[in-house]
């Protein structure tokens, strides 16, 4: 099975100059907790999560008008949409992330695979192995 068979393609993303207030509103309205930050050409430059806003913005009393690129985690864990799913799972375990960005040959964002997408596949051993190797930081107490 390839990543493109599992990945969600309707991925919302924002640009570097989007304010954290806008990003938070988007997360609320779209019921997501994870936003890729992209150049206009859809090249991913970073990731911002709902947790990042709580612990990097609220915890330090930053203004909600500041741009997201000050608070994002630069870079992203990516694989090619044409990679085998098992390679993506290995990478998620190795990099301790619960989501992986799928890109095309030109590096442009094409989709996202999350741990819950893998859990929906129904292969218990597979999903659990990934869940177990993804850190407590991500599915934390």
């Amino acid at each position, binding site marked *: 099975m390839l990543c493109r068979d599992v990945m*969600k393609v309707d*991925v919302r993303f924002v640009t570097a100059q989007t304010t*954290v*207030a806008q990003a*938070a*509103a988007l*997360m*609320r309205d779209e*019921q*997501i*907790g*994870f936003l890729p930050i992209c150049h206009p050409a859809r090249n991913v430059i970073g990731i911002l999560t*709902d*947790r990042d*806003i*709580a*612990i*990097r*913005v*609220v*915890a330090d*009393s930053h203004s*909600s008008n500041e741009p997201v690129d000050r608070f994002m985690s630069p870079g992203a864990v990516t694989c090619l949409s044409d990679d085998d799913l098992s390679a993506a799972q290995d990478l998620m375990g190795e990099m301790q992330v*619960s*989501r992986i960005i799928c890109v095309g040959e030109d590096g442009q964002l094409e989709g*996202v*695979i*999350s*741990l*819950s*997408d893998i*859990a*929906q596949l129904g292969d*218990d*051993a597979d*999903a*659990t*192995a990934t*869940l*177990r190797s993804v850190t*407590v*930081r991500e*599915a*934390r*107490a």
Partner: protein
Amino acid sequence: MMCQDLMKSDVKCISPLTPLEEAAVRMRDDGIGFLPVCDDAGRAIGTITDRDITIRAFASGESGSQPVEPFMTRSVVACRRTDDLAYAVDLMSQEKVSRILCVNEEGVLEGVISLSDIAQLEDGALASYTLRNVSDREVHA
């Protein structure tokens, strides 16, 4: 296996009057994303997550100096420490939460069990079943 065999008992709770900003600092410093909210007697009256801070407070322009109480989740999903773990897992699936509180007869918080604790068990089917049933909201792309 009983809940007390798996629960983490070094759980810190916060007061409903704790400012959002202080809760966020606690989450950052302790590497957690979830805090039980307890009254003066130690009874669990709610929970608040990093996502709640971002979505319910920050996204609506609320100040970080506001108390957590209006933004916490008031319905507490809880079991007793002597309950069978399978009961707790069913309850987590049913209520679509990735953590469950363990409380005593008076409702005083004694511990927390998270999905990741269950994932560490040898029973992969149990963990995967729980993961599949806990909503996308909790372990989401």
